[in-house]
């Protein structure tokens, strides 16, 4: 029998959900508001900010001073490249863990996840030296590899969760019909896991797009993505809030729009396998 929910409870839940939503979204909304103000107005009290003149001045300055499209292109290549490379490595890994588990599988998964707890700065120097030796400092390929490695535990975990939902008998049937391992992965497993792979890709593109430690430390002028573009507008001496806000809006807009259109897949991806 369906549980009845009172109108009062529904109203309270709706108000609570909207309140939480507004609180979470407020910083982004305020950044958008400040981006349309002059530097002088951006530092005023909130009421004065809202009632002051709206202008595109900061966007014009940012557009004139920085090469937005160069940073944008770098972000797209780095985020997509690292995610696709990660999926390529993670699919076989997740397959073996989900369908050919060993007594150590759980331990390996936990160990992979534990690497995410390592403070990044702890390995900055070794990785920096490696990049110098390999000649890939300030290169997009270098960042693609590093971000792939950083996000790999999450990709493997997410794909592993999906693959476990797929009945092993289907793969077994494919094998009995003579499918090779490659064919099994490519033509049987992957098509069935497309929704899971899609949400994994979406989430990791967002993570890679927003990554700001390695992208700032391993780049200079050539491979710098949008995180470096934002960082260039912060200043210790002088007013910069309006321009920084404009740069931030320009940097987050593409990923915000992508997230908006794919929110259904994202929520599904994040909650898949959470409730049994």
């Amino acid at each position: 029998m369906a549980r009845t929910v009172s109108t009062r409870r529904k109203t309270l839940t709706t108000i609570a959900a909207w309140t939480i939503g507004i609180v979470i979204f407020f910083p982004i909304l305020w950044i958008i508001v400040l981006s349309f103000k002059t530097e002088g107005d951006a530092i005023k009290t909130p009421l004065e900010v809202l009632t002051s003149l709206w202008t595109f001045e900061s966007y014009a300055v940012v557009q004139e001073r920085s090469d937005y499209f160069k940073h944008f292109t770098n972000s797209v290549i780095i985020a997509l490249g690292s995610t696709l490379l990660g999926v390529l490595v993670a699919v076989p890994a997740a397959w073996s863990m989900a369908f050919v588990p060993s007594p150590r599988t759980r331990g390996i998964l936990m160990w992979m996840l534990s690497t995410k707890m390592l403070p990044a700065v702890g390995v900055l120097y070794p990785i920096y030296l490696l990049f110098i030796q390999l000649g890939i400092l300030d290169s997009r390929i270098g960042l693609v590899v590093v971000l792939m490695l950083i996000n790999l535990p999450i990709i493997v975990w997410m794909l592993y969760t999906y693959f476990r939902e797929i009945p092993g008998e289907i793969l077994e049937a494919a094998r009995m019909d003579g499918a090779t391992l490659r064919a099994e992965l490519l033509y049987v497993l992957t098509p069935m896991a497309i929704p899971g792979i899609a949400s994994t890709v979406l989430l990791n593109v967002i993570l890679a797009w927003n990554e700001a430690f390695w992208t700032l430390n391993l780049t200079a002028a050539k491979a710098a993505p949008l995180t470096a573009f934002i960082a260039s507008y912060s200043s210790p001496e002088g007013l910069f809030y309006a321009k920084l806000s404009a740069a931030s809006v320009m940097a987050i807009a593409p990923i915000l729009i992508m997230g908006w259109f794919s929110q259904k897949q994202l929520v599904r991806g994040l909650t898949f396998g959470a409730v049994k």
Partner: protein
Amino acid sequence: MRMKKIICTVAATFLASGVANADTLTIATVNNGDMIRMQGLTDDFTAKTGHSVEWVTLEENVLRQRVTTDITTKGGAFDIMTIGMYETPIWGKNGWLVPLDDLSAGYDVGDILPAMAGGLSYDGTLFAAPFYGESSMIMYRTDLMEKAGMSMPEAPSWSFIAKAAREMTDRDNDINGICLRGKAGWGEGGAFITAMSNSFGARWFDENWDAQFDTREWSDTLNFYVNMMNDAGPAGYATNGFNENLSLFQQGKCGMWIDATVAASFVTNPKDSTVADKVGFALAPDNGMGVRSNWLWAWALAIPAGTQKEDAAKQFIEWATSNGYIELVAAKEGWANVPPGARTSLYENANYKDIPFAKMTLDSILSADPNNSTVDPSPYVGIQFAAIPEFAGIATEVSQEFSAAYAGQQSVEEALAKAQALTNDAMEAAGYR
């Protein structure tokens, strides 16, 4: 046929050498107004030399971390770095920077203000050329000072400042008598309190590198600061740095502000400041002990050792820190916008003398001596810092303890005791004690 071949070869060689000589320089810099202006004028450098420039602009702390990583690993990501007076002597001593001892005669090294040249040298050799220099001074509201029935001397004492701050405070109208840095960070609140402590006779270390936070001088400094700020400072001053105070001053909420001389152009700019026509300037205060509380700093351009483009990098530094560049900025954006505090001749220029803060900036810079910054002798060079590699880490922690005291989370005595212990521990671990 043979002749044609020779001509072609000569022409190809000539063209190739032309292309090879045109380098692309990668320059790391901070997002300060003067630096941004320089980026906009880079075409002039390219037109004169053929070299092009790629800029990497970062926030000060990120830049410090980024260039330090690169120079210590000999990464070679940058051909020119924007660094300050703290890093230059340390990096110069380590051999990480190219000495700037062979700049061309036309550059006129002798014109660099002696205080700047001294702070950017190690063992008498210049390792970075100052792009702009600054000290600190008092910026005050002339109307509020008048309303308080007081008159600002050119060189006031701390007791005058504290009295004026309390007189100018008007809580009902949201006016704070004085705005000072309290934010944690060695370059933020740490820089201010260190410079202030010098005028109270305090110092970071004695001649044996023992911490001195257990002395009466440090207790006097911190208690004076906290009492004055509690009576006349803005709410939440423990988290205010340069930008927060700039914002407050420009909105007319500060009677006085003691901070970088470079702020003078911001607070007198009518486009952003509501009090642009009511600002006066004075030297940073003293306490009658012969040392004022102003600091000395320069943002300077240096070449990391190992760059493949040393000649082009030197050409750029000569261009950006020359008198010619100052004249270029003056012609395009006016004399108020030229990079200050680097060259003596700027302050002899009739056009620049009309700028209201020019004289006080120069006087402040000239009164700062990094080699004799404390009343009692100290083993370090530097005014708002001690030029040793360990200082940044130690001072960041110390300033966090001080900020906690400003916020009322602990007493001044507790903060000083913790600062004393952590500084001595760190200095012992580093082998100084």
